[in-house]
């Protein structure tokens, strides 16, 4: 199986989503509102303590704005799509093709990511930069490393969502699981609050989980909070998590696929 096939899946994912362009215009607004709400919350908090959570106010504004901007990029619907495909029995259409189901879903999601970059992330970034005092990356080098870590974020979320989606084979409806994952990911990735606000023990535990490599790691790189050796370590850890979760997903899918039950039709 060649890479070309999965590149083609990505292209299909990209073309597929063209049909739903309209969804993105409302998406831009949603993201903008989220950042605005958090901006005022943080503003109120910083009125009391100008060095709250170990960040200055301009830093936290950048943190929130960039945090939401990159969320628009790494976000994907693999888990929801899989649940739907299992419910509708469409998953059999994937199984009759000589492809890895895991990489089929992931590549299609990556195609959507490219689309999202143009239709959602870029407009969101522009709107935020015009309205809020968002700082640029600490240096061009930090900017480049930030982009590199974003690649990791995207893959990490994709690998994670595939695992969650695989549960649908057994559970059929994974709405509850999706909700739970949604909140865990938003909270533990550092999107809602920086990790520094968690109690010390919680921080240690969370450092052993993959979630903070989704949002927090790229953010720290962007803000210049990590030294170069620390960045190298963070990127290596991120890559390690992607590999681990992808390998686990491949195994987990195999186990789950044995339990597929599709009645009728």
């Amino acid at each position, binding site marked *: *199986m*060649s890479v*070309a*096939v999965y590149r*083609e*899946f990505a292209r*299909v994912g990209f*073309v*597929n989503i*063209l*049909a739903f362009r309209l969804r993105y215009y409302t998406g831009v607004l949603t993201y903008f509102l989220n950042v605005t709400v958090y901006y005022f919350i943080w503003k109120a908090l910083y009125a009391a303590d100008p060095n709250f959570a170990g960040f200055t106010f301009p830093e936290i504004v950048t943190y929130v704005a960039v945090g939401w901007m990159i969320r628009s990029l790494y976000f994907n619907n693999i888990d929801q799509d899989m649940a739907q495909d299992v419910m509708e*029995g*469409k998953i*059999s*259409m994937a*199984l*009759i*093709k*000589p*492809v*890895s189901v895991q990489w089929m879903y992931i590549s299609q999601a990556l195609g959507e990511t490219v689309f999202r970059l143009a239709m959602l992330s870029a407009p969101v970034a522009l709107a935020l930069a015009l309205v809020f005092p968002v700082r640029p990356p600490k240096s061009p080098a930090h900017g480049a490393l930030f982009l590199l870590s974003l690649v990791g974020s995207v893959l990490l979320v994709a690998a994670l969502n595939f695992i969650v989606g695989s549960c649908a084979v057994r559970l059929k409806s994974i709405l509850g699981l999706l909700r739970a994952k949604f909140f865990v990911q938003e909270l533990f990735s550092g999107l809602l609050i920086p990790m520094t606000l968690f109690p010390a023990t919680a921080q240690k535990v969370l450092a052993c989980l993959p979630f903070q490599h989704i949002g927090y790691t790229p953010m720290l790189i962007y803000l210049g909070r990590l030294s170069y050796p620390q960045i190298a370590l963070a990127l290596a850890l991120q890559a390690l998590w992607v590999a681990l979760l992808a390998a686990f997903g491949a195994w987990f899918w195999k186990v789950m*696929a*044995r339990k*597929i*039950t*599709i*009645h*009728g*039709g």
Partner: protein
Amino acid sequence: MPGEVQAEGLTKDFRTFQRKEGIRGAIENLFVRQYQTVRAVDKVSFRIQPGEMVGYIGPNGAGKSTTVKMLTGILAPTEGTALVNGFVPYRDRTRYTRTIGVVFGQRTQLWWDIAVVESFRLLQRIYEVSDSDYKTQLDTFDQVLEIKRYLNTPVRKLSLGERMRCDLAASLLHNPPLLFLDEPTIGLDVVAKTNVRQFLKEVNRRFGTTMLLTTHDLSDIEELCKRLMIIDHGRVLFDGALAELKRQLWQQMWVRIELREPAQAQALESLSLNNIHRERLDELTYRLVFDREEHTAGEVIRQVVSEVDVRDVFIQEESIEEIVRRIYTGPSVLEFGR
């Protein structure tokens, strides 16, 4: 061997969760779950030779689709083995699916929101079909299916018949030695059905493609398949040639009699006909139904015309359709054929 299907004691159990009704039942469901095992396919064994076209029929819920899903590697059998094209479908899924084509009448394997040609291109990459082979295949298919004019239309905008034709082409782009068709003509109009059948026949003739097709339309079988398998309650009830089914199970025969005048009815009614069922259809018409093992049509007609003034006589045999309906509805007939 490519194009060969071997199923040996193939069995599939589904475990379903029994829901209790009402609020009390819903609360009980939270704590105690009762499961029920349903055997969808029960020790099915058969062998299909390369190049054969086999019809697989049965009433709804008989286990047809489940069998096809096990043979295509979608479902793992609970028991038994399948060896298809020399592969164990479930275990070698990615390598195996390269060697088969699958068409589900109720679903499409094409991507819903993109143009048909985009799906074809993707399939071309997936199955590693060279550009020249791709072009030749498409030209060949176009002769019968006339799909080229839909190539730039998104699948969701195609009619069922158009979509089915595109799906057929998609399943054969890589020219597999074996094609599974699960209700390929379902919902199609007469013209589209004929078109699909003609295409399948042509593919089988030209490439020697083995085909296993499930259907509810017996004319599919009569048109395409020499061999027929009937399954019900997960078991194969009949496996043999269509002619053989007729020979074994063709039981009833009908003779329709048109009287010259209504007064003749009296004469017919008073005839003593052993084990022949008389049915009056209208003033002048009667239908006599009898077992062809017991009576011959000639004998029955001779008896009738000797006493009754008859205008016309029509002999009807039971159609395949009726034989099959008898198999589906009456379990007693099953033993008859064995």
